[in-house]
């Protein structure tokens, strides 16, 4: 595949400005933020002022980390009753006991097709108890990944009742599906939600633009996650030593769209608080855009999607997708022994031995133009 040019990069997604007509706002290369405060944005018509980076709390149990995040101006906390069966909410609650007024809390209930209003209210009550508060700013239907779930009116009835009793202010939803458009279109038609939490990144954003246009008209606040598009910067040679810039650039890219009120990130250590805070305090620069372009180009070219399309073209029945996966485990997940063990467990007639003398028919079959044969030869060398 030819070197990706700027037009192709824009087509993939990192040139938000050119694709939408909204000009990208670049900082001067040497610009530094003079403000020491966090950036806050209004969350749609809720008028809640939320920090541009928010705390995602699955796996969370460190109350000290939350306190430090609050001290640094990160006030928006995203959690759910499901997270470690309530352990995350309890950890948040330890801090909320003394600092509730510093926090905008969004928690989630799980609405299944047969969930009743009473069950959802009971779930919310249990969350409030764990969170050591008598109200949350937003309750969201967590993981709303099928449009059919919107048919369960119990979530709306539960919200209305909870709102009347002062337990909650607004209703949101989170969507994690790989293909979110059908669900989000159905959500917009419903006109019952105030907050939408979904993935949004520089590699896969085009389909969401119209959704966000409509959400904006309806006054729905948008919280983005999965902004890092796979977190594969460590796999890319051209981005060696630029991991931090890529991580920060991905956040800035998402926030460059003013409809995004906040980018939700997971935190496990204190350094990340400063890293993400720094990310939002600066605008997207041209060198940020270049880093994202390099990322998009490399990932597009090298990323094996494990679709196995190429295997149909292989005359030797090599287990290409499997071997590529083991190669990834070895190189990027640091699972060297396991990767070698897995490779050695392959039936001998499916290993990459014939690839050295083969014409590389697999590459003809790859819908992404990957150098498949080269990858197989490298894998064989590495895993044997």
């Amino acid at each position, binding site marked *: 595949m030819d070197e990706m040019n700027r037009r192709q990069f824009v087509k993939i997604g990192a040139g938000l400005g050119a694709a939408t007509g909204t000009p990208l706002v670049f900082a001067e290369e040497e610009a530094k933020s003079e403000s020491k405060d966090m950036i806050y944005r209004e969350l749609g018509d809720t008028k809640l002022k939320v920090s541009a980076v928010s705390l*995602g709390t*699955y*796996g969370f*149990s*460190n*109350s*000290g*980390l939350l*306190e*430090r995040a609050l001290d640094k101006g990160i006030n928006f906390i995203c959690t759910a009753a499901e*997270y*470690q*069966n*309530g*352990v995350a909410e*309890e950890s948040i609650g*330890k801090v909320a006991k003394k600092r509730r007024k510093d926090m905008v809390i969004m928690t989630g209930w799980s609405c*299944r*097709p*047969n969930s009743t209003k009473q*069950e959802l209210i009971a779930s919310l009550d249990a969350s409030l108890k764990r969170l050591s508060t008598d109200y949350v700013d937003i309750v969201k239907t967590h*993981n709303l990944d099928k449009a059919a779930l919107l048919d369960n009116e119990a979530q709306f009835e539960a919200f209305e009742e909870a709102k009347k009793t002062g337990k909650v202010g607004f209703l949101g939803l989170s969507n*994690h599906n*790989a*293909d979110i458009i059908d669900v989000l279109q159905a959500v917009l038609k419903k006109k019952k939600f105030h907050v939408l939490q979904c993935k949004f990144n520089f590699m896969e954003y085009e389909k969401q633009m119209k959704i966000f246009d409509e959400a904006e008209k309806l006054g729905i606040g948008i919280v983005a*996650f*999965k902004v890092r598009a796979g977190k594969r910067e460590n796999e890319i040679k051209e981005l060696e030593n630029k991991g931090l810039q890529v991580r920060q650039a991905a956040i800035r890219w998402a926030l460059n769209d003013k409809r995004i009120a906040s980018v939700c990130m*997971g935190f*496990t*250590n*204190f*350094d990340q608080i400063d890293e993400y805070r720094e990310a939002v305090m600066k605008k997207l620069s041209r060198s940020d855009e270049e880093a994202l372009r390099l990322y998009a180009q490399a990932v597009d070219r090298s*990323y094996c*999607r*494990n*679709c*196995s*399309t190429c*295997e*149909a*073209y292989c005359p030797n029945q090599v*287990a290409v*997708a*499997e071997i590529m*996966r083991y190669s*990834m*485990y070895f190189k990027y*997940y640091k699972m060297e022994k*396991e990767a070698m063990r*897995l490779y050695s*467990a*392959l039936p001998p007639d*499916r290993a990459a031995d014939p690839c050295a003398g083969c014409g590389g028919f697999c590459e003809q*079959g790859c*819908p992404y133009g990957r150098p498949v044969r080269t990858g197989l030869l490298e894998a064989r060398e590495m895993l044997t």
Partner: protein
Amino acid sequence: MRSCAFLVFSMIVFVPAGYSQDISSSAEKSKVMDILPASDFMPGWNFEDKPEFYQPDALYEHVDGEAPLYLSYGFRGLAYARYADSQDAENSIAVEIFDMGDLEGGFGVYSSHRHPTERFALYGTQGYRSGALLIAWKGPYFISMLGDEDNAITADALERSVREIVKKIPGDDAYPDFLKRLPLKNRIPNSEKFIAKDYLGWKFFRRAVEAKYVVESVTPTVFVVLCPDADQAKGAYAEFVKTISGQAGLKEDEQEGVKSVWLKDPYLGGVSASQENDCVIGVISPQDDLSESGRKELMEQCRLAIRSLQKKE
């Protein structure tokens, strides 16, 4: 061959990348998929859909924001299946079996999901059921199951399926050895946790175990940061001291050649720490209400536990 290739292409090409798909079998996949209960594990029940398998790079597609937690503990593969009652389709359960690679990883994920006050049962090594949710662990496997309805039928299905699963998991009901580094006296049962990275929010404390205790009517936490060797423990301890060195109220102590520090951290409360061979040990008292003698006693018990373990080794 060409028409076959085209057929395969058209069947496969639009499957989302990394999503569950009918890929060629592998040792990794079959190891965990074989543990799923059979479709008819209960009379009248069957698979609602075809079981699915998720590799590490595809885990996000199933558990999304939860993925980093599992990956940090060494996640290898997930087997997922839904079962439904043919008599009443509203009775259905979802079963997830996470292969965490080893005993430490299995325990680690499980410990992050458990609360000491649960009513535990012998589902595998340990587990509990809370309404329509059932969590269990054995060896490298963490099991999470959820019923769509919270009734006696799905409760029965959850119990039967977990017993089917644990029967298929080889090995005994061992706990990881690293828990022996935590003192036993006054420990709150089932409060032990294993944290795989960034313990207390510090990058230099990579892997740690902790547990809660009852001492003098307060509940401090004892922690043991597990380092590969004494030199690395020394380095981690030095990093910790350097990080807290600017804080007011820091006290340093040395007794019989063993150094320790104590301070009131603005975020953690009262914290003391010291190096003990290949570990950094410490006590956290969030309200800073543990007496100095209580704190020293806990530290000493921790040292003895580690030394006793190392003598046996």
